[in-house]
């Protein structure tokens, strides 16, 4: 661990002294990225040796391709966002590397051991998707030079987000495993909800920055909660109706919970009023209860959640297998390649956390969760440091969406929450999720660059007031 971490006493202001460069921490990022690649390659090697007895032939190609991805990402960040947070990219690298290794491991299990999962080889496909994700990452960093520009397209993005969200409900042939979340073209299918999530977060941030003063008004206090005025409930009701519609028409508790949760928490962050959280929770509980009474597919999910073993042969099979898988793993796991994670249905996508829990045990799973935690912490830290309100809300929303998604997915896998159709960000097999989350991280990198960039370089030559071009913008 020879990461050149800035020790105590490296005051950014001291570094601004003439002659010395401001620390951008890009070296730290490169070292940690190297560490992440090392972990991934070690995982691949261990899997190959444990299962087949010798290193696989594609290890070299994989190693070169995977390393190249992060070298390119690092160079792009160095060029376009030099002050970006040094931890965002390495955390993403180690998570996606771990995911690729597990998918590779399940590929081998599928072809060699004749497991129950399909015998397709998915790891190379996922690597291609990671490359597509990197292209989106670069595109976002190059096109969005200042995150505040996004606020201008807030309503356009909201429209795009809503269309993407509604598309699978309208189009035929979008149903996979009971949830209508997919659009299929020819050979492959995409999950537009993942992209809708990001568009809507940008919109929420811009909208709430604009309206937060009104939404923060309180009318009366009930039980130490300052309740908002009745007419200010409009936006939260609208978000609630949208999320209930998603629940009903797309039959997906996950997206519904994700969107509504993000909106309510961003409302809370914007207004600093805890009453919004309570209102949101009550609304969602009410909506979920009604949906449970009215719709059979919701009832099936809830019943198998309450007692999975009673439905072990039907609806509860996945959860029961997942719980057995986690139980087999125990504290230290069966070792990479030592378990039978292919016994869990759809282990590559929805249940990759169960596969990791089986092979790496509780210690491995907790390490994974802590890496997510670091990622989210960097996002929230960015939100604290960045200077504009829109950036603050956007970073907080993006970071919270990651945390919330991981919570909902792991809750489903471990039986804490009803099973949802969400994917574990960066880990799970699935192109849309991986590509969309690369875009999300690109936005976080962009905002963190703005947050950490010293103001001194931004205003080296203060424009003379008379010379400055005046932009006439009606606020």
């Amino acid at each position, binding site marked *: 661990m020879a990461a050149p971490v800035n020790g*105590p006493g490296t005051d950014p202001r001291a570094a601004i002294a003439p002659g010395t460069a401001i620390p951008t921490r890009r070296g730290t990022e490169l070292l940690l990225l190297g*560490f*992440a690649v090392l972990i991934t390659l070690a995982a691949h090697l261990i899997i190959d040796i444990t299962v087949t007895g010798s290193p696989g032939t594609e290890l070299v190609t994989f190693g070169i391709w995977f390393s190249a991805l992060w070298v390119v990402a690092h160079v792009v960040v160095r060029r376009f966002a030099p002050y970006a947070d040094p931890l965002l990219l390495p955390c993403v690298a180690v998570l996606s590397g771990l995911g690729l290794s597990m998918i590779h491991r399940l590929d081998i299990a599928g072809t060699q051991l004749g497991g129950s999962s399909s015998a397709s080889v998915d790891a190379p496909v996922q690597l291609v998707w990671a490359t597509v994700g990197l292209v989106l990452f670069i595109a976002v960093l190059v096109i969005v030079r200042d995150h505040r520009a996004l606020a201008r397209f807030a309503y356009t993005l909201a429209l795009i987000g809503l269309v993407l969200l509604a598309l699978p409900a309208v189009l035929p042939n979008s149903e996979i495993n009971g949830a209508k979340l997919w659009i299929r073209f020819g050979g492959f299918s995409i999950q537009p909800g993942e992209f809708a999530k990001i568009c809507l977060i940008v919109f929420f941030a811009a909208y709430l920055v604009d309206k937060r003063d009104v939404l923060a008004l309180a009318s009366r206090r009930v039980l130490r909660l300052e309740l908002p005025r009745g007419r200010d409930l409009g936006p939260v009701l609208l978000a609630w109706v949208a999320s209930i519609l998603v629940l009903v028409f797309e039959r997906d508790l996950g997206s519904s919970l994700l969107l509504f949760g993000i909106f309510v928490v961003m409302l809370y962050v914007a207004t600093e009023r805890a009453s919004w959280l309570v209102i949101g929770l009550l609304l969602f509980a009410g909506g979920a209860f009604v949906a449970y009474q009215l719709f059979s597919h919701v009832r099936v999910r809830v019943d198998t959640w309450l007692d999975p073993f009673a439905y072990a042969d039907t609806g509860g099979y996945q959860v029961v297998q997942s719980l057995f898988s986690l139980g087999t793993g125990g504290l230290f796991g069966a*070792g990479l390649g030592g378990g039978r994670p292919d016994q869990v249905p759809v282990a590559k996508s929805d249940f990759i956390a169960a596969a990791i829990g089986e092979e790496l045990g509780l210690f491995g799973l907790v390490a994974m969760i802590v890496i997510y935690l670091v990622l989210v912490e960097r996002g929230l830290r960015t939100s604290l440091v960045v200077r*504009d309100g829109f950036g603050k809300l956007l970073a907080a929303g993006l970071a919270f969406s990651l945390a919330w998604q991981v919570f909902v997915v792991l809750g489903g896998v471990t039986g804490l929450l009803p099973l949802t159709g969400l994917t574990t960000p960066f880990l799970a097999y699935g192109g849309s999720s991986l590509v969309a989350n690369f875009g999300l991280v690109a936005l976080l990198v962009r905002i963190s660059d703005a947050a950490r960039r010293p103001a001194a370089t931004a205003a080296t030559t*203060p424009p*003379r007031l008379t010379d400055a071009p005046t932009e*006439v913008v009606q606020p």
Partner: protein
Amino acid sequence: MPAEIVLQAFRFGFLILLWLFVFAAFRVVRADLFGGRAGRVASVPPRAAAARKRGGRGPRHLVVTAGPLSGTRITLGEQAILIGRADDSTLVLTDDFASSRHARLTNRGGQWYVEDLGSTNGTYLDQQRVQGPLLVAPGQPIRIGQTVLELRS
């Protein structure tokens, strides 16, 4: 299949590797938290520092010196002064170049700092665009759209 001892070494070795990454990440987080803080008050412009030595007890009034509200005088207290087009601002501007929440003047230990609240067209102290909170010396012009403000003692 490799020997059992090799498998056990792989099993625990990989977990150690994973946690070493986590601790490396923690070290970076720690350095960020304790090794120097971002988001401090931006450095004080030299003119303001010089003016602070001359001014004795600190400013008492905020005076509008140019623009439609020219001549308005606000007596300074402990509270922050909000400037913008919004109705609840301390100084309500009727200026198309001002945002509804444009800038804020805050008192910290008898000294006043100006902060831009994410306005569209910016706030200028002297001729420098206000990015972070900046110390305002008495007599230094703060320009918001067509309005110019000054602290007077």
